[in-house]
């Protein structure tokens, strides 16, 4: 039976398949986030400053430290991949606070009252983190290019790079969303965010190779998804770059962790409005 609110066309039978509708819901959530960036690119610009600072100050200074064994690679080459990944991570971690903000405003409820599966909402938000991540990556590419880092511009490398940035950003955005669902307030999230993000970054191969780590830290780093993201980014970003674990394994690890996190986040996100 069709009911037709004031001046509106009656409901028509919706024949789109379930899978298509799911895709449309993911796309809708992601598109809305991208539209926001389009309306207010200022934040995107301010975030681009961070990788600039890291590369120019930290990267250039550390490149003078001879003790760091980075294989055949110069340190600035080595760390540019780490900084790219870091800036993607930092952008993604912001998603938890955005979710708390939406909860406080009430906007969250429009999502939760809709028939969209919670996982579609989570994935949509996560993929929009990927779009932000790509803009960060572009900044790092340009900057690294200016610093004479040998950037690989092979189409296959660039395509895989996009894939890894989107999956990596989505993974950490989802992780951030889970933290937000658990801690519930902005203040606590800020505290926890610091406590979590820094170790995530330092206990990885982002700014120094696994080989110089003490054994226990190496174990931690091997359990850290960021390590696999950096590993792949390093192989794909640099001309003659190589991967320790294999790009395929990197992707598998990231995809599996992402899927698990989406499952957890979907459950928690639905209860966030309580």
């Amino acid at each position, binding site marked *: 039976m069709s009911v037709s*609110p*004031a*001046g509106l*066309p009656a409901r*028509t039978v919706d024949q789109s398949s379930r899978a298509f509708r799911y895709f449309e819901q993911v796309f809708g959530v992601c598109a809305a986030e991208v*539209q926001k960036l389009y309306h207010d690119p200022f934040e995107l610009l301010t975030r681009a400053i961070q990788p600039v600072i890291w590369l120019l100050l930290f990267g250039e200074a550390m490149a003078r430290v001879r003790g760091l064994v980075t294989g055949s690679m110069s340190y600035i080459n080595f760390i540019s991949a780490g900084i790219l990944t870091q800036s993607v991570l930092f952008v993604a971690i912001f998603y938890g606070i955005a979710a708390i903000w939406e909860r406080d*405003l009430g*906007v969250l*409820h*429009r999502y939760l009252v809709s028939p969209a599966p919670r996982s579609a909402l989570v994935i949509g938000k996560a993929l929009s983190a990927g779009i932000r991540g790509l803009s960060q990556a572009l900044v790092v590419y340009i900057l690294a290019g200016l610093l004479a880092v040998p950037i690989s511009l092979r189409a296959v490398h660039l395509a895989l790079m996009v894939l890894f940035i989107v999956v990596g950003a989505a993974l950490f955005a989802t992780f951030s969303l889970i933290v937000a669902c658990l801690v519930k307030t902005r203040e606590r999230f800020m505290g926890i965010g610091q406590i979590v993000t820094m170790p995530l970054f330092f206990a990885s191969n982002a700014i120094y190779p696994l080989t110089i780590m003490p054994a226990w830290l190496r174990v931690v780093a091997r359990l850290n998804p960021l390590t696999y993201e950096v590993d792949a980014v390093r192989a794909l970003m640099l001309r003659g770059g190589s991967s320790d674990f294999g790009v395929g394994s990197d992707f598998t690890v990231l995809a599996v962790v992402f899927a698990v996190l989406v499952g957890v986040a979907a459950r928690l996100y639905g209860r966030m409005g309580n």
Partner: protein
Amino acid sequence: MDVSRSPDTVSPAAGAGGSAVIEVRALTRRFGNFVAVDRVSFGVGRGEVFGLIGANGAGKSTVVRMLTTLLPVTSGGATIAGYDLVRNPGEVRRHIGYVPQLMSADGDLTATENLLLSARLYGIPFREIRSRIEQTLAAMDLAPFAHRLVKAFSGGMIRRLEIAQGLLHCPAILFLDEPTVGLDPAARHAVLGRLAKLRAETATTILLTSHYMEEIEELCDRVGVLREGKLVAVASPAELKARVGPAATLDDVFAALAGEEAKSPEIQAYRDVRLSRRAARSHG
């Protein structure tokens, strides 16, 4: 027989039969030891406009958040548009629209983008999206502002956009939680006017809350009075006024009903009203 107390006899098609489109059965919500909503039962017929009134903290939002699947119930239940609230929240969501007390329009998007997001979340057929958005915006007098960022809107415009969002998928039931709160008189008038038009022109069932009876009495077929989580009366605004006096405020209604509570005749009155309405509807 009291259908509302025996969920198993309510078939999924019950809502489409033309009688109650919302059946609330002993709905209860606790926060810790605090009982925010205490065994609330009522029914709303198809096309009816039902108002829930009560002071701040009476439990209005908690009832609405449960009925819109946002908040799990502690006990009791409801049938919404023919679907069981607890067992089938997904289907319930498909058939309702919700305008929350807080914001539901995103200030960082334009009016059209907000509606586009809703259209995609609700799976509105691709070919229809554009025309539906245009028509809904026009119905809410927002057509000239279609491409403005919502953060530049006035409170009344935001509310009307939120109503547009809630109606875009043509829900059987629209829930509005304090739709006029924080609006100036002109904006209130515009919002209530839109709802009155909706009521006159469509079969959409409306459940709205308010803490002013005066404000919604013209709009509502019936109102339920919530007090400290309990539903203390359900009647037409005229009947409530007849009980309490023509110039009655919400406080007067409470005061009058408190005396009656011991005998609790209001539950009886509620049933009578519902049964008579149901009878009236089956003739119509």
